[in-house]
């Protein structure tokens, strides 16, 4: 059965009798995309699960006020991205030991994964992504993995399309260089 449209979900959500059912449909429709977007940024499942739950609770509280000026999914991505960036910032502040330039906290968590294999391209790519600054990591992830158009990314990140293109170009170059060197 095809996923219900965003408009249909929103209409049902506004009616108290169908509110929870509509929200369940919304979660089911976007949970995997949001989960992987978060996971690419914070690496571990535990952190991703916590953040994803927080995102959905925020969505539940704010969905009534959602104005259909932007697409629902870009709004969801915006909440998830902000949640991740706040989390990463908190993690940085919590870190008591100075992290070396070569190995940041996320990189260590990535290498701690029981399935980690540096020889495999998919792991090498994730390792390369962790070398990027947070904002570039978000831009690269949205463009490369989610294939999000710049116009929509601009809504998610509140940044001009030109700046996003430049940021993505820099990020892609760095990752290409990392893959060639390793």
């Amino acid at each position: 059965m095809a996923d219900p449209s965003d408009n249909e979900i929103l209409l049902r959500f506004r009616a108290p009798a169908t509110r929870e059912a509509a929200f369940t449909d919304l979660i089911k429709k976007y949970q995997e995309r949001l989960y992987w977007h978060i996971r690419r940024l914070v690496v571990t499942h535990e952190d991703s699960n916590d953040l994803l739950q927080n995102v959905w609770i925020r969505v539940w509280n704010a969905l009534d006020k959602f104005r259909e000026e932007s697409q629902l999914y870009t709004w969801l991505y915006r909440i998830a991205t902000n949640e991740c960036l706040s989390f990463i910032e908190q993690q940085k502040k919590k870190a008591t030991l100075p992290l070396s330039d070569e190995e940041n906290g996320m990189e260590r968590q990535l290498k701690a994964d029981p399935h980690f294999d540096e020889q495999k391209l998919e792991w090498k790519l994730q390792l390369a992504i962790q070398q990027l600054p947070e904002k570039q990591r978000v831009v690269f992830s949205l463009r490369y993995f989610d294939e999000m158009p710049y116009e929509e990314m601009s809504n998610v990140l509140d940044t001009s399309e030109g700046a996003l293109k430049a940021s993505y170009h820099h990020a892609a170059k760095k990752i290409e260089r990392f893959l060639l060197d390793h």
Partner: protein
Amino acid sequence: MSAHQHTKNELDIHTPGLPFPAPAMPYTVPAGYFEQLSSTILERIRLESDELPTILNSLKQKNAQQLGWPFQTPAGYFEQTPAAIPTKKTAALTPAPVIALRKHSLFKHAVAAALLVAIFGVGRWYQQHAVPDIETDPANWVRYEVKKESNEKIDNYINGSLIESTDLSGDHKQEIALLTKDIDEKEILNLLNETDLLAATTNESDGSQKILN
């Protein structure tokens, strides 16, 4: 052009070293995670939006003296609290004494400055009045000892030392007489003249005689 094709073209032009489409995510997710996620979230939402306020409300109304409740408040505490608040408010509005921190700070600075001056002063005085050690610093020891004596005393010493040195004791006179018994008196006088010793002793009326005798 589709978003997929657009992304592919972009990569082909600028970064051909990057694989496209993106390789599968290497991470794993616990089995059944996505199936249960919506019910987990809805449970949490129910707890936070419905049950939590109910629990908090019931806690608020709970009698403090009720059995099984671990904490106790004085009898009638909640009834009296609203009446006690205005009194507390008035007390809070009474201006607190203002302590001039600046004043203390200036005083502290002055004390610190005075202490510093005293420390440097004592250090300097000690440096000037300390007795130098004769073995480690002989030059300063001499300077120090000379400074202690008056100029007059030093002048007297310099002027009289040579004369005093020629004021020979009886033993020395005998020794000199023994040494000079075979030497002609003229030769001795010549030697004294050549070495200016005679000039130094002529202040005494019988200079050369003194030495020779």
